[in-house]
């Protein structure tokens, strides 16, 4: 049976050959050419969404979009105040409710089409319209007519496709009517969700999501490749004051921060805006003046389930807060790279008062007497909740140890649920003890640290008020701040609102994080802003 054998061999090799060949087609990569000296690379994690302004609410995609788009206003990396260096010439209002946005002339998208009032109005309507399922939809919830763009049931059609609160006045002017006064509104519009969109977007949003057409200092000449990244080149017709200094920037996707860090050490990666935890201790000495550390606009708190009988008494919550030595945890677990929080508001925004929260300082004696007075049952252990797999185990355990040591309360770590289970449990009042509560600001306004986290309108499932705190006085002071005619008045009202929080302490502010990054010798002028983003246009290639 010689024949059979030979046939068999032929079939076997033939089959596998066909498989390999058919699958291998198009497998070649472009390769990285960085010859002209004007290009550099930045680490990013995999963006979670297509690169559309209305659907990008995380840092990875946000970083890329930030290079591709310029919004109405831009945030000063030093002061974090909104500056009119973007597309808007002015944003004005007499009553803090109806805002007139005037645009600068001469801005164009990367495909040559002009940036005009319609570009903004169309983009915002698209994002707000619920059948488009855009993650950033809620940013437009305070514009009149937003409700009409929400489908009454899944798959149904909303009443309208355009918000009645948006009106194009002329080519370079449009009017926005809010449902209630909000004096800080002009500061909010620098956020990703508010970027303009060219007509090309509406023809094919999916294609746009892979290769966005923006109006920013860099343009995408090739589509973003998931798992790999994208190289952006300088947009020569950029209308802003500060065009990109480098000729191109590559955003390279890594799964493992450790791998990226090894590449950075080896010089094949230029900038990381975040460092792997193991490297933090040694990075400063290794990179010297190429190590970057800046403040981040965020807060990590220990939220209390105010709906739970054991934590309904503010004095119990204060006692827990006073039993935590924030600096010790920062030193022991984070190498001192967390700033102890003594306010509900971040130091990077106007209105921050250092030491505002007295119950945020370690005071074991006071804590114990408060706990005694409240009649707290110390024999029952408390549950400490956090989401799994995100590196929160060590510091939550440290919190637990301090509670045990300082208050004599045993603890149980409840950190085995991933976000997909943890978040629904938070929404459903399922926290049986203090839990990790973290927030990164959307825009540099004190209100952003108060309203979305503690106001009655932000109760889950619509908002992030996971402590289920509700206090009419707080809500009212917040309203007052929003409607204030001047910034000083607004800040005063927000601080008064914060004082209400400090008295009730629905959560214990713990830390503010620092951005930690490093760059290679190839680049200079690397700035990480309070959003954790690198200003790619400002980066200079030196070698």
């Amino acid at each position, binding site marked *: 049976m010689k024949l*059979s*054998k030979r046939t*068999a*061999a032929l*079939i*076997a090799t033939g*089959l*596998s050959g066909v*498989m*390999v060949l058919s*699958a*291998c*087609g198009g*497998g*070649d*990569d472009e*390769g990285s050419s960085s010859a002209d000296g004007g290009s550099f690379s930045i680490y990013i994690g*995999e963006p979670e*969404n297509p690169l559309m302004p209305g659907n990008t609410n*995380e840092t990875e995609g946000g970083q890329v979009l930030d290079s591709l788009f310029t919004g109405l206003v831009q945030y000063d990396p030093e002061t974090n105040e909104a500056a009119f260096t973007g597309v808007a010439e002015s944003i004005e209002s007499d009553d803090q409710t109806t805002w007139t946005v005037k645009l600068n002339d001469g801005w164009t998208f990367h495909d040559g089409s002009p940036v005009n009032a319609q570009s903004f109005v169309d983009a915002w309507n698209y994002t707000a319209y*619920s*059948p488009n*399922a855009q*993650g950033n*939809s*809620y940013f437009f919830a305070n514009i009149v007519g937003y409700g009409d763009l*929400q*489908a009454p*049931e*899944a*798959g149904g059609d*909303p009443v309208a496709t355009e918000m009645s609160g948006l009106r194009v006045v002329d080519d370079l002017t449009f009017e926005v009517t809010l449902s209630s006064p909000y004096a800080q509104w002009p500061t909010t519009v620098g956020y990703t969700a508010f970027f303009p969109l060219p007509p090309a977007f509406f023809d094919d949003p*999916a294609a746009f*999501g892979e290769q966005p057409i923006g109006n920013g200092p860099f343009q995408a000449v090739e589509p973003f*490749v998931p*798992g790999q990244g994208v190289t952006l080149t300088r947009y020569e017709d950029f209308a802003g004051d500060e065009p990109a200094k480098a000729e191109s920037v590559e955003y*390279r*996707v*890594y*799964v*493992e921060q*450790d*791998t990226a860090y*090894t*590449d950075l050490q*080896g010089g*094949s990666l230029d900038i990381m805006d975040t460092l792997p935890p193991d490297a933090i201790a040694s990075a400063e000495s290794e990179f010297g003046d190429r190590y970057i550390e800046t403040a981040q606009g965020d807060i990590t708190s220990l939220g209390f389930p105010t709906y739970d009988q054991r934590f309904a008494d503010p004095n119990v919550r204060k006692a827990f807060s006073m039993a935590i030595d924030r600096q010790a945890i920062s030193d022991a677990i984070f190498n001192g790279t967390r700033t102890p929080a003594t306010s509900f508001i971040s130091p990077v925004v106007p209105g921050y008062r250092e030491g505002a929260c007295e119950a945020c300082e370690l005071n074991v004696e006071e804590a114990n007497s408060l706990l005694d007075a409240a009649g707290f049952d110390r024999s029952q252990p408390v549950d400490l909740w956090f989401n799994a797999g995100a590196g929160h185990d060590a510091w939550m355990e440290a919190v637990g140890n301090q509670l045990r040591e300082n208050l004599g309360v045993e603890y149980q770590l409840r950190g085995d*649920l*991933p*976000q*997909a*289970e943890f*978040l*629904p449990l938070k*929404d459903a009042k399922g926290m049986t003890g203090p839990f990790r509560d*973290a927030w990164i600001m959307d825009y540099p306004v004190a209100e952003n640290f108060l309203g979305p986290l503690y106001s009655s309108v932000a109760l889950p*499932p*619509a*908002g*992030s008020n996971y402590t289920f705190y509700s206090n009419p006085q707080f809500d009212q002071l917040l309203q007052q701040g929003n409607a204030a005619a001047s910034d000083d008045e607004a800040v005063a009202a927000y601080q008064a609102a914060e004082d209400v929080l400090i008295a009730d302490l629905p959560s214990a502010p713990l830390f503010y994080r620092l951005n930690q990054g490093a760059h290679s010798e190839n680049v200079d002028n690397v700035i990480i802003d309070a959003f954790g983003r690198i200003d790619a246009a400002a980066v200079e290639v030196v070698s």
Partner: protein
Amino acid sequence: MGRYVARRLLLTIPVLIGASFLIFAMVYALPGDPIRALGGDRPLAPAVVAQLRDEYNLDDPLVVQYAKYVGDLLQGDFGTDFRGREVLDTIEQRLPVTIQLAVVAILFEAVIGIIAGVLAGIRRNGFLDNVVLVSSTIVVSVPILVLAFVAQFVFGLQLGWFPISGIGEGWYSFVLPGLVLAAGSLAYVARLTRTSVAENMRADYVRTAKAKGLPRRTVIVRHTLRNSLIPVVTFIGADIGTLMGGAIVTESVFNLPGIGRAIFDAVRAQEGAVVVGIVTLMVFFFIFFNLVVDVLYAVLDPRIRYD
């Protein structure tokens, strides 16, 4: 032979249907709400959540979801992930990377493994045998994660012989990850070949061949090796199937955008369509390469007949 292959290929159809349903059911059974996790700490607008749940049929019972999935599949629609990206695009982009990595790994595994095994096996307890024994024991006992980081640090960063990560340098980028990925199996192949060769060296037919006065090379290559390779081919065949499923650790450490990472991400995000699409493809690969192995048996061992 042809009928045998046809029958085996036909049999894959019920297996694929069963496997895809099981995988679909497993993703369905995962606790938690994937759409809720999309929003993170800041929940999505309620109407947007409803829209997404509707788009991905998440409110339907398992059987209805699966029926809708298969219905779309029959029209050539593999579904999309939560980012709206086609599953087919993901496979098309990532499979070549995984194939390149698997090819390099299999090459190392087969060539180095078999040569080392034969050298060790023909002189049992000789010097080479001991070298292979010790080195393979060491390699097998080091976790691949450690191996990957050490190799990357030493050969990538310090010596600079290979790129540290990524696929920027074509096939050359796959040499180091391929070697790391192959290491464990390579040691196993060497041990397997060694045992098999050593055993066959004492078989009657080898003694006969030697007695006939055949040159030593012919005895080893034509008679011993061919018979010794059956268990090795089985192992390598099964290994190809496994490697095509992607190597999550190796792909992550060396930052190779392959299929393993895609599955890992999809399982974590509970993207049913992506997991089912890719894993079903992997099941097919596995069945297919097992078929290739079975066919190869007939080539290696004349006593095996399939007709």
